[in-house]
């Protein structure tokens, strides 16, 4: 516990005692549940520093299992690799192996004569995993990734065009300095202006999206609730798309970089903005209409039906509230359920091994090319 917070806690306990004496202990239930004051009373001697969960226990607890919290798995706690302690694959002239012992994994590549083995410290992704490796002070994206659908190692998506000529090239793609920072910044917390991997926390913490949360937490512990994180509640669908797109990539990002092809189907904010039903002032099509970033992802197609029917439901269409001006939401003539299974098809990433749900909502025609 920091000296500063110890003083704050002592102050709070003194305030609590004063309140108790003045109006009797029956006043205690009026202390908001979950507030620092309440916790201080419950535990009498708080020994831990405040966290967001101190006040926002429900959402913080739920976020523990959210995908973004696991955007990077910490070294030593990677359940996926622990469940597959010996993975090997032969790709071209090179043999790859990922071994996990006592929670720690190593990445090995061999050309039959020489072998290179590096520890895996930075594990990107909760399901399909790619690793960032460090060698001689440089960072590399592992040339192979683990694909849980097939429990196999295969070429990392996007690296299919690389033909390694040396063991080092076979080990991984050397990251550009800005790539390294950008990769870590979207998969970890505490990256800041200059990447220092010793100071980062794997996965996203509250502050990552709720800018100002740290300052708010410190001030709130001092009974000052004037400094609040910037509110995200008033963002419209376009702004939310851009906000999430800071990591998940926006329409603007994809256009500026002239990215083309199915490899970029994984950039959902870009894809959804191609949809005819997307319009920035309609909250029913915002990222948050379907996804709660503080919770686990729901993979059931049926779960999303109510979201689609918020515009395409018969009652909505009949009452004229289906869509904004200039657009008429139609009722699907084929089905009333599992909308996403047809209108948001799964697209195989180049190289196979993994699929992504295409967020370009559309009427999919049989045999049509991947639309851009």
């Amino acid at each position, binding site marked *: 516990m920091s000296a500063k917070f110890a003083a704050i806690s002592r102050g709070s306990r003194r305030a609590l005692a004063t309140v108790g004496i003045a109006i009797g202990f029956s006043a205690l239930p009026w202390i908001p549940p979950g507030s620092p004051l309440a916790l201080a009373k419950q535990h009498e001697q708080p020994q831990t520093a405040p966290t967001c969960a101190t006040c926002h226990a429900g959402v913080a607890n739920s976020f523990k299992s959210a995908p973004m919290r696991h955007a990077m798995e910490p070294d030593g706690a990677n359940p996926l690799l622990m469940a597959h302690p010996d993975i090997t694959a032969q790709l071209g002239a090179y043999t790859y192996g990922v071994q996990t012992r006592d929670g720690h994994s190593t990445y090995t590549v061999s050309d039959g004569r020489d072998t290179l083995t590096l520890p895996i410290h930075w594990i990107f992704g909760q399901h399909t995993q790619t690793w960032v490796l460090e060698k001689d002070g*440089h960072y590399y994206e592992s040339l192979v990734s683990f694909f849980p659908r097939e429990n196999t190692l295969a070429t990392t998506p996007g690296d299919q065009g690389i033909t390694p000529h040396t063991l080092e090239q076979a080990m991984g793609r050397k990251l*550009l*300095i*800005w790539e390294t*920072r*950008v990769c870590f910044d979207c998969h970890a917390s505490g990256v800041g*202006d200059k990447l220092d991997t010793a100071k980062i926390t794997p996965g996203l913490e509250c502050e990552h999206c709720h800018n100002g949360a740290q300052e708010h937490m410190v001030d709130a512990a001092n009974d000052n609730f004037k400094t609040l994180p910037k509110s995200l509640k008033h963002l*419209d*669908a*376009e*702004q939310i798309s*851009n*906000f999430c*797109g*800071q990591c998940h990539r*926006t*329409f*603007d990002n*994809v*256009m*500026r970089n*002239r990215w*083309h092809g199915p490899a970029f189907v994984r950039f959902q904010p870009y894809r959804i*903005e*191609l949809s*005819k039903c*997307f*319009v*920035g*002032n*309609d909250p029913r099509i915002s990222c948050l209409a379907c996804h709660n970033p503080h919770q686990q992802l729901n993979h059931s197609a049926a779960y999303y039906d109510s979201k689609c029917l918020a515009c395409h439901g018969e009652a909505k269409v009949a009452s004229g509230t289906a869509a*904004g*001006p*200039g*657009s008429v939401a139609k009722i699907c003539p084929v089905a009333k359920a599992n909308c996403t299974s047809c209108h948001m098809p799964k697209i195989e990433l180049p190289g196979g091994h993994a699929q992504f749900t295409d967020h370009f909502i559309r009427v999919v025609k049989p045999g049509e090319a991947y639309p*851009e």
Partner: protein
Amino acid sequence: MAISVFPNSAPRIILSLTLFGAILFACAYSLAQETSAQFNDLASRAAAARDQQNVPLAIQLYTQAEQLNPGWQEGWWYLGILQYGSNQYDGAIDAFTHLLQLVPTAAPAMALRGLCEFETGAYAESLRDLEQAVSHGAANEPRNEQITRYHLALLLTHAGRFPDALAQYRALAALHADAPDLMQGIALAGMRMASFPKDIAAEDRNLYEAAGRAGYVFLSGDNEQADALFGKLFASYPKTAGLHFYYGYLLYPHDPKMSGDQFRDELEIRPDGETDALLALTLIYEGHFAEALRPAQAAYAANPDLEMAQVAMGRALAETGDMKRGAELLHQAADHNPNDLEAHLGLASIYSRSGDREEEARERKICRDLAR
């Protein structure tokens, strides 16, 4: 007319003309035979002189041959080449001009005339010729690529077209071309000095060589070493204007965060509207629209006609609440330059947020077309 007025004389006139034509043809044939023999003799003697490295005689004989047969393309080519090789630039320009009249798309002749014009100080003409030559494929010939691109880059810098110059230097870096003049040229383009390396003061040569080397390493693809070299440069020349802008501009297509930091450092040394506009755009790329407003306003105040400033100001205003004025500025930029992707991205966002689906779809389509 005479034929219709005096119909009876027509056969006689036709006969006379036929006879006259026959006599003329016979004379011309005889003369042509004589001239042809003379021309063939000159041409073969010119080729022999050229083979024997007797340049003055070869030039003399090619000149005589061209007087007899000005349509002889090969002669003009050798006449131009021989004079270019012996520093007779005016004569070479004349020879290449004749050749280009016969074959207007002869890219090598265009390139060589451009190089001759460079030597005579006719920089505008030289720039026009070298630019056209490259667009017609003169730089596709490996033997000519370095000299053509290098001179084009010098001229583009001299004309103040710095981004175009850096594009040529990028191509030269990929060829592993390496020379002190090349380094100084890169630095001039990067630091936005519209001059030639020969004009750099003796006391500044070390600075320009070091700056050029850092840029060259960056353009060659080694961003880590380039970052270290730029770091040393900033430490050695902390108050030199243009250096941070130069590195920021190189980083700009790759990483808005790193380039924005450099533009901020530059603005502390030298306030400049273009730097403010670029800083605003980097903040817009990162989604920091409110932060982008101040530099956008400064850029627009410094130069309201600067397209970048209009786009930055328009987008920043639109995203922070003033959609009407934002749309006006973005339309102004898009009307001036219909290929301005940033202007159309901004307009797509405005129409999306205001619920104008039709205009949004139109703008997004323009963006997709521009990004192809």
